[in-house]
């Protein structure tokens, strides 16, 4: 592949120079050539998330949104924390006017990279496009990207997610432990029924609340989410979860 390197192309120490070359071709508008380079690179490095990300950007430039989404999902399978893939998925969703999906992907990106100015600016823009009310977020329990997870007290995930399957299963397991601990604390301190537990970290706001005696729900949102809004969304999601459980029965 060295005979097609453009002037100034940096040869990657691990043989990933095709990433630079493909990006340069893409920026020049030579999408077919860029795609050929990206696909050839992926043939050698199928587990490199950046290569799938490159292909996603090329497909998006070609107007092939389905191809772009497929490439970015492949990138996330290689690296669930890949910011570029999240931004890409948000871009395609935005182009399709699916603003909630765009926002969710940007929120996940913001949690992974809380100081990324491009992500935060995009998140601001997308939020400015819709009314800012607590009821505007329709709970989508079946969507693993929503940052809403319903689990049982054995730590089994029922629906929803935390970005990727493995993280969701881990969160369900840890969430069950947290739910049991809140029930124990409430019982031993004679505090009555558990209403919620909220956790603030430098990069996320998390709320856990019981849905039924056997199930609980966890919401996680970017750190910029006001706690009142987080709790309102959690209550809204809990109602949706009760409805979902009734339908399952």
């Amino acid at each position, binding site marked *: 592949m060295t005979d097609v390197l453009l002037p100034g192309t940096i040869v990657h120490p691990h043989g990933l120079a095709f990433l630079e070359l493909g990006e340069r071709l893409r920026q020049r508008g030579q999408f077919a050539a860029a795609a050929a380079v990206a696909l050839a690179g992926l043939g050698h490095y199928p587990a490199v998330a950046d290569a799938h990300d490159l292909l996603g950007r090329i497909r998006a430039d070609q107007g092939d949104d389905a191809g772009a989404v497929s490439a970015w999902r492949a990138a996330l399978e290689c690296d669930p924390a890949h910011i570029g893939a999240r931004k890409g998925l948000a871009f395609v969703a935005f182009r399709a006017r699916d603003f909630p999906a765009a926002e969710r992907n940007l929120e996940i990106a913001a*949690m*992974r990279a809380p100081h990324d100015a491009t992500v935060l600016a995009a998140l601001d823009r997308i939020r400015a496009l819709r009314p800012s009310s607590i009821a505007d977020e329709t709970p989508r329990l079946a969507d693993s990207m929503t940052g809403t997870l319903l689990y049982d007290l054995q730590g089994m995930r029922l629906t929803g997610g*935390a970005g990727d399957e493995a*993280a969701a299963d*881990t*969160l369900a*397991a*840890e*969430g069950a*432990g*947290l739910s049991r*601990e*809140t029930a*124990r*604390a*409430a019982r*031993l*301190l*004679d*505090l*009555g*029924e*558990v*209403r*919620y*537990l*909220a*956790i*603030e*970290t*430098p*990069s*996320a706001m*998390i709320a*856990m609340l019981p849905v039924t005696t056997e199930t609980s729900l*966890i919401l*996680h949102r970017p750190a910029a989410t006001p*706690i009142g809004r987080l709790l309102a969304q959690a209550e809204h999601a809990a109602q949706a979860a009760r409805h979902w459980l009734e339908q399952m029965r």
Partner: protein
Amino acid sequence: MREVTGVPGVVGALIISSDDGLVVAESAMEDLVTANVAALSAALIARATRAAAAVNPSVPTTMQFVAERGAIFAVAGPAPLWLVAVARPDAELGRLRLLLRDFAGALG
């Protein structure tokens, strides 16, 4: 700590060690068993830390546990210390949250 317990509805304020769940300092009403609060708060903090780690790599700075008849607020100070307040549900939770944050910062 007396300033924290001065917030209407707050029945106790403690500095605890989250490592072992022991009380380091306290100001509380007589009927509040602060040793129990400290131990259970430390257990909640440990569980909250593990749950937060499943979402992202950062550690909790604040934990707010609200139940039917009371609430526990905990704010991280210099490790392993946490400032914990026990409040009735009708307490001014927003004011308490801000006050605890200020005091936790001053613990260092």
